[in-house]
Structures are given as C-alpha cells and as structure tokens.
C-alpha cells in the first residue's frame, strides 16, 4: 500500500462506534485481505489478520493491537421529533452544540446537535455549558416521520468530512484510532517484501472507548508472545503543553510505565535510533489509557509495548495527525518485526 491516505480518509468517513464496528471493519477487511494469509472475526467483532512468518514451526507470535471503534452518541429518547442523546466513549459536551451529525436510524439521517434556549431549560442548566442531558438532535423531519425512522438505541456519529491541511496534516473525526489502523496496515504492507520469522497477528479491536473489550478477548484467543499496542497520544497544542504532550509531527511516542515491558521499550528505542526515526518517550506513570491496560494482563500476562501517534484535539470531530508520524509508526513496527529472530524471547526478560 503505497498511498494509504485514501484508505485512511475512507476509514474516518465511516462510522463504527464502540460496540457497532461493522461498517469500518468491512473497510479494513478489504485493505487487509491482500496483505494477510488469514482473516477472521472474533466472537465480539474484532478483526484478526494473520500474516504467517517464515521461521521454523512452532513460530512465535507478535500481536499488533489497534482499536478501530469510534466515540459517538446514542439516542436515548425522542420528543416532538427531536432526539435526546447520551455518549459512547468520552465526549466533552461543550463541543457538541452546532455539530453536524448523522443519525443511523432505519436510514441515515443527516442532522445537527442543538442547544435549546436557556429559558426552555431548568434554571441551573441554561446559563453555563449545556450538559448532554439537555442537548437535542434535529434531523429536520416532522415528528411522525422521526418516530418511524428512529428508535431508542440508534447511533449518532460525527459527520465531519476529512480535511487535508498544510504540511501533511490530516484533520477529521475518529483519527483516534483509525490513524493507528493505517499505521498497522502500512506495517503489513512493508512486511510483504520482507522475510520475518514470527507470525504477525494484526488486530483491529472493538470497544476500546468503552470496555477495552476487544483488547481483553482477542489476545486470549491468539495468545501472542508479545504485543504492540498502537494508539494515538496527546500532541502539543492549545491548552495542552505540559509533559503529557508530545511534539506534533515530531515522531513516534514510545510508551513508558507500568503497562509497558521495559525490554520491549528498549528494543524499540534502539531500533528507532538505528533507523533515525524520530521518537519521544511518552510517560505513562500509572495506566496508559490504551488497549495495553487490558492486553498486558490477559491470561498469564503478555509483554506489551505501546506506540503512539501524536494527535491534537482528541475526541473532537477535528482531530489532527501528521501523516509523517503515521508512516513512522508503521515503518518502525515493520522493521522491529522483521528483526524478530526465533529466539528473541530470550531477551524479553527482567534481567535488567
């Protein structure tokens, strides 16, 4: 896959909210079909792609875990043709008023989030930012038609179209975490022309934003020897400038903290240095806030690494990444995997 931009734009134009990943899974499935030897879907919807290694059997397994689910909203009630909503994943209600959305009813209904005037809300609710409980979605249809086409439990997704900005920056919704799926896809692409001893299991996991459900279940089935979790991390930007934020377009975030096996961190760091791929240590003093929280403690435990793509404006419809960083993460992974010898596990230990 030489030009992955159309693929990424296609992914971030699709819904696929946590628990309802079907639409984006189909797009990823098509992209991975030619890049893998076997494709399957887990019992709760994660996509598993196996690219077999060339080493002697039994082969070791490396898992690449990238979640494909998106944050969004869900209809909780319908009143006079307007819909009340709740969130799937974490959304700051302050960014919602005026957003274009799509209500996924019996058909797709374009609409927008509206903030009722203060005098129609309880006194305490109208003056400051209006909480999600009080926001409504208007799809422009008359009440009778809405009741026919929408029911409680239907999904509402962001409608923002992808935007290509200067300097290879891409903006849009759900770059968290479809940018990482693109990176995993780049990795699979690079491995087409490389020999690698290990089996590579690429997983597009479900429900990261809600339950970490995919990350808890897929590794149980696959039982990898090591896992690489790819997710977006915080890029420096307005209001986000402390140690938790990495330079935008400044290279790979290499996770460091309790979720990460230090030997894997070290191996990635050495690889990045050798290839002159820019990287920054991404400090995670407690939990990583990624699939790694679940992956690491599956069954008897799995040595796990976390790679990050710096992203601005997380969980808004205008998230932004640098394509350079997406490519860097894909390439770093491919080089790391291609270098895994059959006995590589001997070095993934605690003899520091």
């Amino acid at each position, binding site marked *: 896959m030489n030009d992955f931009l159309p693929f990424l734009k296609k992914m971030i134009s699709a819904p696929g909210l946590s628990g309802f990943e079907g639409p984006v899974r189909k797009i990823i499935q098509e992209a991975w079909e030619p890049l893998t030897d076997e494709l399957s879907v887990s019992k709760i919807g994660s996509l598993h792609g196996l690219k077999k290694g060339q080493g002697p059997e039994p082969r070791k397994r490396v898992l690449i875990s990238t979640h494909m689910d998106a944050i969004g909203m869900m209809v909780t009630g319908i009143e006079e043709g307007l819909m009340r909503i709740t969130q799937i994943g974490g959304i700051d209600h302050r960014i919602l008023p005026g957003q274009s959305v799509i209500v996924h009813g019996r058909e797709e209904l374009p609409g927008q989030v509206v903030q009722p005037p203060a005098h129609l809300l309880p006194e305490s609710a109208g003056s400051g930012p209006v909480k999600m409980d009080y926001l409504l979605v208007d799809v422009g249809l008359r009440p009778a038609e809405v009741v026919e086409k929408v029911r409680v439990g239907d999904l509402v997704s962001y409608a923002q179209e992808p935007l290509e900005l200067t300097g290879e920056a891409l903006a849009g919704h759900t770059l968290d975490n479809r940018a990482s799926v693109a990176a995993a896809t780049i990795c699979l692409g690079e491995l087409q022309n490389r020999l690698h001893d290990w089996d590579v299991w690429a997983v597009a996991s479900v429900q990261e934003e809600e339950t970490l459900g995919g990350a808890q279940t897929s590794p149980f089935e696959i039982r990898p020897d090591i896992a690489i979790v790819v997710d977006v991390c915080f890029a420096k930007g307005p209001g986000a400038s402390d140690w938790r934020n990495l330079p935008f377009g400044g290279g790979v975030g290499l996770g460091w903290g*309790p979720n990460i096996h230090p030997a894997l961190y070290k191996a990635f760091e050495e690889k990045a240095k050798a290839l002159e791929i820019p990287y920054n240590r991404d400090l995670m003093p407690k939990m990583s806030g990624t699939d790694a929280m679940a992956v690491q*403690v599956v069954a008897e*435990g799995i040595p796990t690494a976390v790679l990050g793509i710096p992203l601005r404006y997380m969980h808004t419809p205008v998230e932004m990444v640098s394509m350079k960083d997406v490519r860097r993460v894909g390439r770093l992974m491919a080089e790391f995997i291609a270098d895994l010898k059959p006995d590589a596990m001997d070095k993934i230990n605690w003899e520091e």
Partner: protein
Amino acid sequence: MTKKLEISAGQVPEIGPDQFALLEKLTNAIAVSGDEHEVRQIVLEEVKLLADDVQVDALGNVLVTKFGRGEGRVRVMLASHMDEIGLMIVQKNDDGQFEFERVGGIDERQLPGKAVLVGREHLPGVIGAKPIHMTTTSEREQKIEVSSLRIDLGPEIGDQVKPGDWATFATRFGILGPSIRAKALDDRLGVATLIELLKHAPENIDLLLAFTVQEEVGLRGARVAAYRFDPDMAIAVDSTPANDLPNWDSEVENARYNTKLDGGPAIYVMDGATIGDQRLVNLLTGVGDANAIPYQIRQPGSGGTDAGMIHQVRAGVPSVSVSVPSRYIHFAAGIARIDDWANTLKLLHTALSQVTPELLAVERRA
C-alpha cells in the same frame, strides 16, 4: 553463596535478627509500581535455594513453588506485592530541578520538605518548599500542588536522571522499641512473611508464592499470577492502615480505626475489592482462637488487596486477606509492631498446616 540455610518445615517461624535484616533490606530498596527490579532481585536471591520452582513472568512477578508431600495436597497461593507507592520524574527543568508525578495513592501534603532517592542508583534529592517568609497567610491555607513541587538533585546532576525514572522517600529502616519504622512496610512486611513461610513450608500443602507487581496501580500482577498458578485457594498477605489515633473530640470514641496496633493480624471479611470466603475466614479465626494467637477483624470498608483480582480469576478462587497492621501507610515512614508481624507469621503458618481438601469440599456458605 555461603549463607547457611535454616529449613525447618513444620516449625512455627519466629522473628529474630535475621528477619529484621531481611526486612531492612527489603524496605530500604526502591520498587515503585512498574519498576520492581530491586525487590525482585532480593526475593530471587532469598528463595533460590529453598524453592522447587522459580519463575519470573511477563509482568515481572516472581512465582515460587514449594511442593509438599503425600496425597491430596491443596494448592495454596499466597500473594504479597513487591511494589510500593512512589514518584516518577516527568520533566527536566533547569538547575537540577525535576517535575514529578505520583504513582499510587500518596497524599500530596506528605511531599514538601522531604528527602527522596531517585533511580536505580538511589541518587539523593530533596523536595523543597517556598520559604515561609515569602508565603502569605492565605497561601498557607492551601495545599501545595504537586505540579508546583520539584525534586532537586543539585545543579550538576546532568544526564544521570531522566524523565521516566522512579523515586521514593529516603526513609531508612529502624527499630523503635517494640516497633519497626520504615517506608514501604506496605507490603514488604508481606514479602518478608512469605519468605519466612517458605523457609518453614508446611508439608501438607503445595505452597505457591506470588511476589506480585503493580498492586498499587490496580492489582495487576496478582491477576496474571493467579491465572498461571490456577490455585485451589488463596491468601493475600498485605499490610493495612492502623488508624488507631485519638479523635480530636476526646468525648467521641474512634469508631473508624480500620485496625489497631497490638491487635494482631487483621483478617478481612470484606473490603472494597473482595468479600472473603467465610470458609477461609473461619479457618483463620478458628486457628487464632484455638492457639491463643491474637487477631482482629479489619473493619469492613473500602480498599483492596491482591485477593480482589485473584478470587475472580478463571472459574473463581476461594480467597481471603490477612494484613499486618501498620500506622501511616503510604506516608514517608510507617510504624508497625513487631508482635503483630510475629503473630501474623504464626497465624498463617498454623492455619496453612491445617489446610486439607475437606476445607473446600463444603459449599461456600458465605
């Protein structure tokens, strides 16, 4: 290796100079959650000649097996965590000053004016505070935020310390009359207890010792350790706060002490993470009553031990927790009674010696 091994299966272990030396070594070590290296090395050294099998797993837990003898041996897992709460360096500023974050539950009011040790090399540093002369009255009524504090390692620290390094309080182990004073008694008391139990392993059971990681950040090591051991039952051995201080209003009885010093080992009926298996609670209280070993019931409430994960692993593991009470847990220095530790060892050893398959053959009654 010249150390003489004192293996005395069946005998009740006691506390003496060797045990204090072990606890001193353990509590002076630095092992903040995620970086348990130093304690792991001590544990590996202590257990290597005593155990039938020793493994270090994917998360860094040390898993020790000591088989018993005879038929029908119950597989009993004991878990104590190696990690402690602490700090992580997150940003280097000028002049040897470093920003840091807390790992695990530390009250920020404990931080200003403390000496700390940073990294594998135990480099000394201090967390200072603004001179009182430059503070205002209203300022002194506010907490000093962690984000405004710095660890100062001196102006020429250079690259010896970098973001991602761990740090903790520089407290040294000491004996104060009937008490032990040290940092990280939570849970090096448990770690030391497990090592002593291994030296005196009862032969009626298979003893499965998990020296776990990452307890303070979510009981994470215990989960995978229990999955691997797949035990018949489990006991988490930990240390729990003794808040047995006077109420400000001296007329009012302190009804929220959690545990009391000199009350003996604390047996858990319920905490925030586990409802103890009554078969095991009854075993422990019964052994205490029959052998005149003092014990107390930890006040039911919040908090959690490794048992919180262990009992939910696979198809379920009957579990209970026992803690050595300690004052000022998660502070720079805790204080525990030597007698409470000795009685914890005694209670556990005696109870383990009485574990038979019949214990678990009856249905869980609670």
